[in-house]
């Protein structure tokens, strides 16, 4: 970039620099008074914050803006005293005290704060940030209070260097996508004012990271760029370090990014932006672009417009020969030299001229700054008042507006009706009175029930006199009915007309109209072109409703029939018992006494109990329960029966 010991290279460099200097870069905004006031507000609010980082950056911002930072001496001490064990609080608090040049004592919290800083230096894992904060805090304390040797400390930090010492690599854990580590290192370099060969290379590499540099990534975070530039400038200028230059291309690119960022609301962001802009404007004046701004981008016809040429901080540009000259004024879309360019007059960077063009619209101003050959273009909008006149609403059987019945506006509700069933057309004709013929004119229908709006474009027409005649014809045909959703009812009509040349848009209420549409047609398109799985995928109508077929209850007989059969079975049973005596059945073999009687009765009882258990199983018992009961009962029945039959056999034998 900047330094080279070779004379031919130097000569080439100066030639290139001279050539580049012929065209001073221009940006279209600057840091205005309103921005200054807003930033003062941000700084003031930051000084009252409870966040140490916010207080730190608020202090830096306030100091950069030339504000009063004396309140920090109290608030920062309070923050540190409230939380002396937190590294961030102590480090940022110390930094704020240093920035504000406070001479205060931490009192009882000092011992703990020092201990926190020392432990921050030795912290492992993500310790780079801790070390940086600790180092900055130590510097804030005057150096050497925590770290034995600041130079050694910086060298320790500078150990994040590639093996050949050429590049200061990013600390472990920081991504190559972000240059945050480089910024923090540069901040340390600037704060410690340490210079070395490695530092020089670091600065050069960092400068290559600025947008606009050859091979740089213009998508780098603008906030990071701001920090980088601030750190670079501080390191270079304050430390008396190696010469470093920023090219005009880099300056312009950086200025655009910073000015785009100036709307930030945070103290940290505001400081970065302002510090970088300030550095660019004061320490790299040759690279800083100028701001050529149309202070009045929109004017009325024949009014005065104002051009301001300032530096990016809103100050006057000094040391440049030649003012700002308006070379030509061209109405957009027309031939060159359509307007005689007026002469800009004024001083102190603010110039005025009365617009001499006729007609509203957008004009391109070509401005020459400082006698340079290349012109800078800015756009001026000239506006005038406009109005709508000769408004008519018509309902006709054809497209011709004049064929139907015409109504004056506003239409009374319910008075005017139009029907799609009869193929009618609704039209509106109007004339725009004013200096401009509008680019856009719409005829709007608003459904009073649903508030939905449907707009139709109006076209230029010659049916009425006047250059700004328009007509909008709406056919209530099928395709338009779909736009209305087939919703019949009252619609509010209005005209909406706008153009850049109008000082305000025009919206004219035309009254209410009753529209009748046909009913919504059935869906005419299939969901899928081809069936996915079933033919019904392309069905246009709902499939038949599914009726669940539940199992029908079984046919039950009349109650008489089961009763009759039960009677018949009972009859058979009765006949069985009746014929038993006839065939000779008797109880003579049944024991009459003694144990044989007992066992036989027990045997019969056991059988009855088994049958009762089976009945109980049928009615309410579970299978396993039945088996559990059946097992002992069965065994008992077996044993009892065996005894009974053995006794009977013995009785028979005897």
């Amino acid at each position, binding site marked *: 970039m900047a330094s080279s010991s070779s004379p031919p290279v130097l000569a080439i460099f100066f030639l290139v620099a001279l050539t580049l200097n012929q065209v001073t870069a221009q940006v279209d905004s600057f840091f205005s008074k309103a921005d200054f006031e807003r930033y003062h507000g941000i700084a003031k609010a930051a000084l009252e914050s409870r966040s140490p980082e916010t207080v730190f950056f608020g202090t830096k911002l306030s100091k950069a803006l030339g504000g009063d930072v004396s309140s920090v001496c109290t608030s920062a001490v309070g923050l540190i005293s409230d939380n002396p064990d937190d590294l961030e609080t102590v480090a940022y608090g110390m930094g704020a005290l240093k920035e504000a040049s406070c001479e205060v004592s931490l009192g009882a919290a000092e011992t703990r704060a020092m201990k926190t800083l020392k432990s921050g230096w030795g912290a492992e894992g993500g310790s780079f940030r801790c070390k940086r904060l600790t180092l900055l805090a130590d510097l804030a304390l005057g150096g050497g209070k925590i770290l034995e040797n600041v130079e050694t400390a910086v060298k320790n930090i500078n150990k994040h260097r590639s093996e050949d010492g050429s590049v200061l690599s990013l600390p472990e854990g920081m991504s190559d996508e972000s240059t945050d580590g480089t910024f923090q290192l540069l901040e340390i370099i600037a704060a410690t004012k340490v210079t070395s060969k490695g530092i020089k290379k670091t600065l050069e590499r960092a400068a290559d990271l600025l947008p606009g540099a050859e091979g740089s990534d213009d998508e780098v975070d603008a906030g990071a760029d701001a920090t980088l530039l601030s750190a670079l400038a501080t390191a270079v200028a304050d430390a008396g370090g190696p010469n470093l230059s920023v090219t005009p291309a880099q300056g312009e690119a950086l200025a655009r990014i910073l000015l785009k960022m100036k709307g930030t609301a945070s103290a940290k962001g505001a400081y970065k932006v302002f510090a970088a802009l300030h550095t660019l404007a004061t320490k790299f004046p040759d690279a800083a672009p100028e701001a050529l701004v149309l202070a009045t981008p929109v004017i009325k016809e024949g009014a005065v417009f104002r051009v301001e040429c300032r530096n990016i901080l809103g100050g006057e540009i000094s040391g440049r020969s030649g003012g700002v000259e308006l070379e030509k004024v061209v109405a957009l879309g027309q031939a060159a030299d359509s307007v005689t360019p007026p002469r800009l007059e004024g001083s102190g960077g603010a110039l005025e001229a009365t617009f001499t063009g006729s007609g509203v619209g957008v004009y391109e101003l070509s401005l020459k700054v400082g006698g340079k050959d290349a012109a800078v273009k800015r756009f001026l909008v000239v506006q005038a008042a406009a109005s709508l006149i000769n408004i008519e609403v018509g309902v006709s059987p054809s497209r011709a507006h004049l064929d139907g019945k015409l109504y004056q506006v506003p239409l009374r509700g319910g008075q005017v009706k139009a029907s799609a069933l009869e193929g009618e057309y609704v039209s509106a004709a109007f004339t725009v009175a004013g200096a401009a013929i509008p680019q856009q004119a719409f005829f709007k229908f608003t459904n009073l029930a649903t508030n939905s709006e449907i707009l139709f474009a109006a076209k230029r027409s010659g049916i009425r006199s006047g250059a700004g005649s328009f007509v909008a014809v709406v056919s209530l045909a099928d395709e338009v009915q779909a736009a209305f959703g087939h919703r019949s009812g009252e619609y509010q009509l209005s005209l909406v007309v706008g153009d850049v040349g109008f000082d305000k848009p025009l919206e004219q209420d035309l009254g209410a109209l009753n529209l009748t549409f046909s009913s919504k047609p059935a869906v005419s398109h299939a969901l899928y072109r081809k069936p996915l799985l079933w033919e019904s995928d392309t069905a246009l109508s709902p499939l038949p409703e599914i009726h669940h077929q539940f199992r029908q209850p079984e*046919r039950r007989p009349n109650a008489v029939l089961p009763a009759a*059969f039960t009677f018949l*079975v009972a009859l058979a*049973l009765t006949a*069985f018992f009746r014929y038993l005596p006839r*065939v000779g059945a008797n109880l003579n073999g049944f024991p009459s006494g003694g144990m044989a009687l007992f066992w036989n009765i027990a045997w019969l009882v056991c059988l009855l109990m088994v049958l009762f258990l*089976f009945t109980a199983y049928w009615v309410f018992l579970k*299978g396993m329960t039945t088996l559990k009961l059946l097992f002992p009962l069965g065994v008992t029945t077996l044993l009892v*029966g065996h005894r009974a039959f053995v006794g009977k056999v013995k009785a028979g034998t005897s």
Partner: protein
Amino acid sequence: MTPAASALDIRGVGKSLLAEYRKAANTQTKIVDLFLAFIVATGVLQFLYCALVGTFPFNSFLSGFFSCVGMFALTVSLRLQLSSEKNVEKAFGEYTFCCLLLFFVVFNFIG
């Protein structure tokens, strides 16, 4: 031979069969035969009912009908044992056990 003569002949055979049965069969056999007749009558009545009103519930019909069939089979085997074996008590004990087993299955299936 004329139908009337055939009918008279069949009646005669039946009468002689019945007379011979009454003379030859002992009491136990007659009781068992009467029980068999009752079982058959019950089974036929169940079948007729099913034919008239349908099989629902089918499991109940099966359990009832096969209880008759099972009892018939067991009782027939008891009859055979009673006529051939001297140990009536043993046969009756086995018959009782098998009937209880059959009843357990029937009650399990009857629903």
